[in-house]
């Protein structure tokens, strides 16, 4: 029996309670000061509902974009050998290390009508910066590593023999990919999707730069909390925060369920 169980566990629980659990508890306690009627009036207002709708739909769209292109990227990084592969692999983690405000600043300038990429969208008459599409684009950046890094290890561990067996039984390459490889990747892929989504719904820094932040149009839920706080409306801020927090916890529950399943069958 090793020493230090009391000290390490005690300190862990103390610090966890002090920094995380008690403050989070305070948030839920504060929300009970509002009656149900007030809570629903604030958290369910038309403006708040528009903000949730944008937050959730843009996050889901960003997760799906990564679900397609991130999957291709993971495949290419694992299966093919080409110059610069290692460097590109390291760059996948960049969104985790880059401060979100910098991402917001750079993306906004990139996608304005005169910007490096925005000019091509402008030719098609599509506005990206200061629109909902801008929110999707920047959230794609923010959540990219979650999809790639979840699928990549599973792809690496995939047994080549199974593919060889499929091929020796006469399956073409495409049939093998579709019937053997993709189904094996599905659990990791859905976990990655949920993790990308979870990361995106809480995001604030990068989005407020690019969104334009018009009420009912391009205003995300976390920004609405900030507005309430700026008006010293603690109750209002709390109500929206509780909704956002419950959505996050639900997503975490789904992720835990998916990854447990993945461990069982993966």
């Amino acid at each position, binding site marked *: 029996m*090793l*020493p*230090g*169980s009391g000290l*390490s*566990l005690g*300190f*862990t629980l103390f610090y*966890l309670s002090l*920094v995380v659990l008690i*403050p*989070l508890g*305070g*948030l839920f306690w504060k929300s009970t000061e509002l009656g149900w009627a007030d809570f629903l009036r604030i958290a369910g207002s038309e403006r708040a509902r528009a903000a949730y709708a944008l937050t959730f739909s843009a996050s889901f769209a960003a997760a799906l974009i990564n679900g397609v*292109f*991130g999957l*291709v*990227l993971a495949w290419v990084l694992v*299966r*093919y*050998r*080409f110059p610069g592969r290692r460097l*590109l692999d390291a*760059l*996948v*983690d*960049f969104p*985790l*290390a*880059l*401060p979100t405000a*910098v991402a917001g*600043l*750079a993306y906004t*300038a*990139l996608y304005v009508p005169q910007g*490096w*990429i925005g000019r091509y969208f402008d030719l098609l008459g599509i506005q990206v910066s200061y629109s909902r599409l801008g929110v999707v684009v920047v959230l794609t950046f923010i959540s990219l590593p*979650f999809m790639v*890094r979840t699928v990549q*290890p599973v792809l690496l561990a995939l047994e080549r023999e199974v*593919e060889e067996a499929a091929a020796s039984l006469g399956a073409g*390459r495409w049939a093998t990919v579709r019937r053997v490889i993709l189904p094996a990747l599905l659990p990791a892929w859905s976990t990655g999707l949920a993790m990308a989504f*979870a990361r995106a719904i*809480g*995001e*604030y*820094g990068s989005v407020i*730069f690019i969104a334009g932040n018009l009420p009912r149009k391009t205003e995300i839920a*976390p920004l609405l*909390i900030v507005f309430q*706080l700026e008006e010293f409306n*603690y109750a209002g801020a*709390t109500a929206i*925060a509780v909704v*956002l*927090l419950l959505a996050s916890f639900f997503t*975490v529950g789904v*992720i835990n369920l998916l*990854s447990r399943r993945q461990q069982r069958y993966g």
Partner: protein
Amino acid sequence: MASHSVGAALPSEEPRQASTSVFAEPAWVRLLLIVVGVGFLGVVVILPVALVFEQAFALGAGFYLDAIRDPDTVSALRLTLTVAAIVVPLNAIFGVAAAWAITKFDFRGKSILITLIDLPLAVSPVVAGLIYVLIFGAQGYIGPWMREHDIRVIFALPGIALATTFVTFPLVARSLIPVMQDVGREYEEAAVSLGASGWRTFWSVTLPQAKWGLLYGIILCNARAMGEFGAVAVVSGKITGKTDTLPLRVEKLDKAFDTTSAFAVASMLVALAVVTLVLKVIVEWRTSDHESGPGSPAREHV
């Protein structure tokens, strides 16, 4: 979030090339996939970074130097470094304690504890700031008491440090736990049975084996602490020259239409991110050289 493996070091195994076409895609398909995958990464990651430097130097090197030597920017840099100097050691000590408790002992509720440690990653940064405003703010639970005793948390350094601690809370623990799990308990048990004290065992047996995991957790925690925006924006009050951190300074300059200065300050933060990634790659090389554990220093959460 039980099995986050974002940022996980990948085994250094080379991709296996199939010799015959039944096991591999036709050449044109491979080329197409490489172009799509790499192109996606280029548009999403490389272009924005290139743009930051292009914009930062748009008015020349002289302007750039003036922008990053501006007194308010220097004060923001100082605050950012101070916050990191407070937060990173705290979360590192916590990470070591939590990893020791979780990997060296068996107790009921361990998986619940791990879920709770990960919780801050699922909380929006804005909510992370809000919870401290609700406690320490002017109308907060203990705000009035604090005002009487002239203790300032919100709109001051303690609040910024607290919110940052919350946001980066699990990062060190998350990268240490898998490494310490892989090492197992036998070495420590042997040391203790030979008469070494608990601390001695930790310093001379546990730490040398887990140091790269610890280092990686600290690097990541540091990058996130210096770059945090949402949580800090809520608690800092954004007082120029006093409670502005570097990311808040970027926003303020951008809002004031001083775009080139905003990009100049942003380029300092990009440099931080680049240094972080380089250190990460070095740590990964180190761990795959020394073959400690499965060659992955960090299946950490982010």
